């Protein structure tokens, strides 16, 4: 299977993050700092990460996971891992 492009990854990741956070996708821009969103904490971010790992059948490195701030960062580590 050819590797997914960043443009293909971003909408899926945005959709998963929106669902986990209980927000409409329109409120989530790729550069938005996820932990600055009201009601979002590190556990919710980790929940989104776990869902993404299941969706793509991948394991992200913990050191990457705990550094990431935005959907854009998520797309970067997914792209690197795929």
């Amino acid at each position: 299977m050819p590797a997914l492009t960043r443009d293909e990854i971003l909408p899926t990741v945005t959709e998963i993050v929106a669902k986990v956070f209980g927000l409409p996708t329109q409120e989530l821009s790729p550069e938005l700092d996820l932990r600055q969103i009201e009601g979002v904490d590190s556990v919710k971010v980790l929940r989104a990460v776990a869902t993404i790992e299941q969706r793509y059948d991948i394991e992200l490195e913990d050191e990457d996971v705990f550094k990431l701030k935005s959907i854009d960062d998520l797309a970067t580590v997914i792209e690197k891992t795929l």
Partner: protein
Amino acid sequence: MTATYGQAVEVPWASALADYRCFGCSPHNPHGLQLTFLTHPDGLESRFCLDRTFESYPGVVHGGVISTVCDETMGNLIVLQEGRSAFTVGLRLRFLSPLAIGQQYRCVAKLRADGDLYHGSCEVVDDAGVLLVTATGMYQPVDMERAREHMHLTDQESESLRRSLSQSTQQNGA
């Protein structure tokens, strides 16, 4: 596994080995988890509710015990689906939320071949279906001769286990 849902499925160890004491799934180990398994369209399911014997912080299930539940469910899926024993060579978990003592949970495992190894994945959810734990595991299958050596089986036990594994595959294999 077959595509049915929720049918009780027996792991082969109990019928094959008289002195089977697995901490995770033996009904004969009073100190163990005594996990039982059900068929699931994705693979294999275990439903569990743990008492304070398996506590970490007050009221919270110990993370190591949750790891065992995941490992057991993935490992026994290999046994039931592929008809062979396998040793865990890697295990990784994400704990998203603590599990409470006395609450009912479900662990569902899936499996795929990964070269000479098996790659298992599983998730633990609560009654409402909220995802609480995800896990992945890598498993090294072992042939009967090596299994016999590692498990210190007698000739009779080895033959009994071989028959039991073969029957499991016929009943549950893909």
